[in-house]
């Protein structure tokens, strides 16, 4: 006796429901530059129209000079967001530069090494970026010129899996941008 329980399933509609054409997504992202890596400042909520003026390492008022001669980053100990004396010295230089070059804004990017879970590391990077920001504010930089973002462990600059690379990745990077906070 063949008595079947019939279970109809809407296989077609469900199986084909996900996008199969690449041109169906991405529309909302056009013109945006999300996911900027270390060193990039596009898409970080700033108006990019401001004049930067003369650039280059030879000009002490240039973002290049800031990044390389003053030092755009400070490093942290494992699972810490406390600023070392070396970090504070770097941030003193950053604060001085930002006070002199008052047309510039900055986004401080917080990062973590890969030895941690993903979402915790986003929160840890936020803590590190904020530590750098608070220090710059304490040295006189207006808070309105400083914004923070965390990339967690998603944007390493050093790719090996040993302490020498981890030390470089546990960082807060001050990225200079021109214009007004949007």
């Amino acid at each position, binding site marked *: 006796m*063949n008595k*079947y*329980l*019939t*279970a*109809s*399933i*809407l*296989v*077609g509609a*469900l*199986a*084909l*429901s*996900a*996008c*199969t054409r*690449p041109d169906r*997504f*991405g529309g*909302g*992202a056009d013109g*945006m530059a*999300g*996911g900027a*890596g270390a060193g990039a400042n596009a*898409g*970080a*909520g700033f108006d990019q129209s401001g004049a930067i003026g003369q650039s280059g390492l030879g000009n002490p008022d240039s973002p290049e000079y800031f990044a390389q001669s003053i030092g755009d980053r400070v490093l942290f100990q494992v*699972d810490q*967001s406390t600023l070392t004396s070396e970090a504070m010295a770097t941030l003193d230089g950053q604060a001085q530069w930002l006070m002199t070059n008052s047309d510039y804004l900055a986004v401080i990017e917080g990062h973590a090494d*890969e*030895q*941690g*879970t*993903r*979402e*915790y590391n*986003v*929160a*840890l990077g*936020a*803590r590190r*970026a*904020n*530590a750098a920001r*608070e220090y710059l504010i304490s040295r006189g930089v207006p808070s309105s010129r400083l*914004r*923070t*973002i*965390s*990339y*967690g462990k*998603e944007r*390493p*600059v*050093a*790719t*090996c*899996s040993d302490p020498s690379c981890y030390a470089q990745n546990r960082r807060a990077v001050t990225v200079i941008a021109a214009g007004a906070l949007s």
Partner: protein
Amino acid sequence: MLTRTIALLLAPLVAATALPAPALAQGGPLQITISEGVIEPLPFAVPMFQAETAGAEQVAADITRVVAQDLIGTGLFREIPSTSFISTPASFASPVAYPDWRAINAQALITGAVAVNGDQLTVKFRLYDVFTGAELGEGLQFTGTTGGWRRMGHKVADAVYSRITGESGYFDSRVVFVSESGPKDDRARRLGIMDYDGENRQFLTDSNSLVLAPRFSPGGDRVLYTSYESGFPRINLLDVASVGRRQITTVEGEMAFSPRFTKDGQSVIYSVSTGGNTDIYRTDLGSGAHSRLTSAPSIETSPSLSPDGSRIVFESDRSGTQQLYVMPVSGGEPQRISFGEGRYGSPVWSPRGDLIAFTKQNAGRFHIGVMRTDGSEERLLTSSFLDESPTWAPNGRVLMFTRETQGASGGPQVHSVDISGRNLKQVPTGGFSSDPSWGPLQQ
């Protein structure tokens, strides 16, 4: 009457989590009892499903292989190769020649038939307990479209698994994950969706901006994830069918991330960082009303709701290191539940309600583990350079997670393991992949 038992090593967890009498009790002794002991996979035979319409031979063969692969893939079943068969059924309606199957020690026999009419596909099957010489349950028939043939195979395998184990299956389910490509210091990420076995992979977003940690809605029709599309971490809600997406308006803050659906799918529970401090909030997707669930100067993130919706497990470093805490769904005083050595993160409540899976970091290694919801009976299931982010199969018996290999050329791959720590394997995803979120059994 013979009783053949396959014991799945589940340590002492089973005693308190045993189901009521399995649904198959009336069907006969063909069963896998989950209890302590050593596993001996149950041998089954699945002759190629009969093609009942002209031209259906290929899809019938393909569906048969899906059924076999699903069952083998659990680690609980072993397929007897067709080269050992003494006879095969002349038709789906033919009487079963039990002695021929007993002779090759097939304990379960699955027969099936496939018919194609236009783009309509009909699959029917029967399951037999060879040693008692009786059918286990009634024949079942599924109807769908030819394009969904893999799902038809999964449906058959889910029914077989369910009848033999007394538990619901998990084969007809999908997983949303992050597909990764490019070098380690410039990795592109986009959301992908796939069947539980890595088949039918499709992208849900482009790779223009960083995406993190997607989560399926309870119904599997929507996905919450963290997106850097705006330049800063924000929470997006994506409709799977249309791949349309929108940014959720969260409480004010510098960063919003770690979103999870509530059990009714109507609200999102997530983290916001402001001034370096991270707490957990809830926002109603309809009204936009917010509430704050934690208020501490420490990091509170990675929430996960209990299946009854009454409690939230999350991670916090309020004690000085990452540990797991449970609080009422509306907030309130959290109770710490993790007390072992090391750090605990990314907790996920089992859909059965009995266990919490987590990532543990200790002595330079990462582990996926499970513990009871009060923190007792912790067991580590995996160990590697970097394992993290577990997600539960719909039946609470298998976990997927991210395993990352070390070094500049290393990268993440989605893996799965059952809650006994057995059957560890990589899920084929066609490249680097991370942060799986296992959706519900499809209807």
